[in-house]
């Protein structure tokens, strides 16, 4: 059986080199690419062609769900299930229900924000092929990495490796799957 690689990875010293390399990989026509950096780099989104995430819409939906749940809860409790008149206020006393509704809006939106982000990122992922490169441990410290995956339609081992070596990289690695 043929031994399959996950991809080819290049290591860089500076964020500028990484962004330039990512831009060149994109110009070259590679699409199954990813970059790794020890902190968020705004320029890389454009360089790799990362589309804006749908996450904000999900969070908005989460917030609306929280708001409706808050209204539903207070309405059900005080109007349908157990109406008690307090201080002559109507059973459906909306202003008094606003604080719980507001808090549930925030709570639901925050949950969607955090767990939605982790879910869309495919985390938790205790194993990933990129961890097979020993130098990759520096991605959370000071180094910058670019990978072209073997799943890329334009991927060809010799060709891609040559391309990676033509970049301004410190070192180029084969990433075992």
């Amino acid at each position, binding site marked *: 059986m043929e031994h399959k690689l996950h991809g080819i990875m290049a290591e860089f010293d500076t964020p500028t080199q990484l962004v330039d390399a990512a831009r060149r990989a994109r110009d070259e026509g590679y699409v199954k690419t990813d970059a790794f950096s020890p902190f968020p780099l705004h320029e890389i989104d454009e360089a790799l062609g990362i589309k804006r995430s749908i996450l904000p819409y999900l969070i908005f939906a989460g917030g609306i769900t929280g708001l409706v749940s808050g209204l539903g*809860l207070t309405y059900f409790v005080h109007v349908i299930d157990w109406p008690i008149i307090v201080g002559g206020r109507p059973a459906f006393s909306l202003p008094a229900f606003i604080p719980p509704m507001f808090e549930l809006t925030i709570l639901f939106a*925050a949950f969607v924000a955090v767990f939605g982000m982790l879910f869309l990122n495919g985390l938790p992922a205790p194993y990933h092929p990129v961890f097979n490169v020993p130098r990759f441990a520096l991605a959370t410290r000071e180094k910058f990495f670019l990978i072209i995956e073997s799943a890329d339609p334009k991927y060809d081992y010799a060709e891609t490796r040559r391309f990676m070596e033509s970049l301004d990289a410190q070192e180029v690695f084969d990433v075992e799957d």
Partner: protein
Amino acid sequence: MQDDKELQQKLHPAMVEGDHSFATVTDKISDLTLKKKTPFHWFFGFAIAFMVMQVLLITIVWLVTKGVGVFGTNQPVGWAFPIINFVWWIGIGHAGTLISAILLLLNQKWRTSINRFAEAMTLFAVACAGLYPVFHTGRPWLAYWLFPYPNTMSIWPQFRSPLIWDVFAVSTYATVSLLFWYIGLIPDLATLRDRAKNKYFKFVYAIFSWGWRGSARHWHRYELTYLILAGLSTPLVLSVHSTVSFDFSVSQIPGWHATFFPPYFVAGAIYAGFAMVLILAIPLRHLYNMSDFITKTHLILMGKVMLATGLIVGYSYIAEIFFGWYGGSQYEWFMIKNRIWEGPYWMFYWCLIFCNVLSIQFLWFKRFRESEFWLFIFSIIVSIGMWLERFVIIVTSLQRDFLPSSWAMYSPTIFDWSMFVGTLGMFFTLLFLFVRFVPVISIFEVRTLLPEANVHGHQQDFEENVNEVEYTYDRTDPPNE
């Protein structure tokens, strides 16, 4: 050239001092948890805090055994130390959220090196605060009755009550603060995972970092989440102390029934919180040699925030007196007189004015703002003052209300005090554990503050063509024409 440099430093003070690179920043902060031998002062401080925490446990055991009668709280002062301390702790927490969320939205770079421990402070302060209402219910094992759940008694909480709003506000606040703090930690825990030599530590950090690998796609969503969480936390933090103030202002008691309570309480909360952040930051930067990241600039800025919020609080005290007089209610005016000069607790009021209004006027002067010693002293004075503020608002309003026949004096018992001191022990115990096991400063965010974090490219060419001067586009400093 020298003048230019000085001017530049004045306009955009460096948030990271010393000669640092990504690697040294990472190593310096992560070594605190990974490499360095636990210093003696850590064991010393932790031991004291842990012993003081035992006072809390003893108090709770006694309280649960005997009932809430062990507290001095009794009619007419049916709300005393437990709620004073609850409000004090919750207020302290607010500075953490302000630093992590509001200053992020306002693009204040200086928040970056203090947000991690300020958020931890928030969490621990909220944990301390939460103990009071739970144990003051008298039957803490039934505290879950506060939450709406279908039950065989077919009873629901009363959603028109500020006390239930408080349950929702504080529990949401605690949850969202925890999420925000934890999300901020994930990339740093991944750093610890990759740097840990000890197998077990590596395993634990690997579990808690969820397999974070710093992918650009992940960072993209991560930043969106972080920003949106900041946007959600901002109204949340304002709502929490507003809701806390509703506990008072929705009632009819003179001295509580005032519409300006929400902003008054929120300002006081931020004031007390910044005082606590300074109390923690000043020893931290010395004991752990972190003065490269928590610079003088940070302390000065925090001193300024303290001064500003302190002035709002001072204004509120004046407004309170004015409303008492202008409102034309004899009960309100009586309460003001009782609070300030006629009643038995007048001295507390003047101590409070000294601590919260007079003492901080020194912060107008550069000499005091730039002195760590004085900032530390003022922070302690302000913390005491904010505690006195809650004491004055709560006790002097309740002890003489409408009916003279129900007037009475309030004094705390030893258990009131031991519970308060005990929560201080718990707070510091948690903080010591935090400092030992978690990076106290957000490593990945400090990396972004370094000049080498900037991507040089198209912007630079553009600027060069336009200005014909050597200029590098710098993300940390906005370009100044």
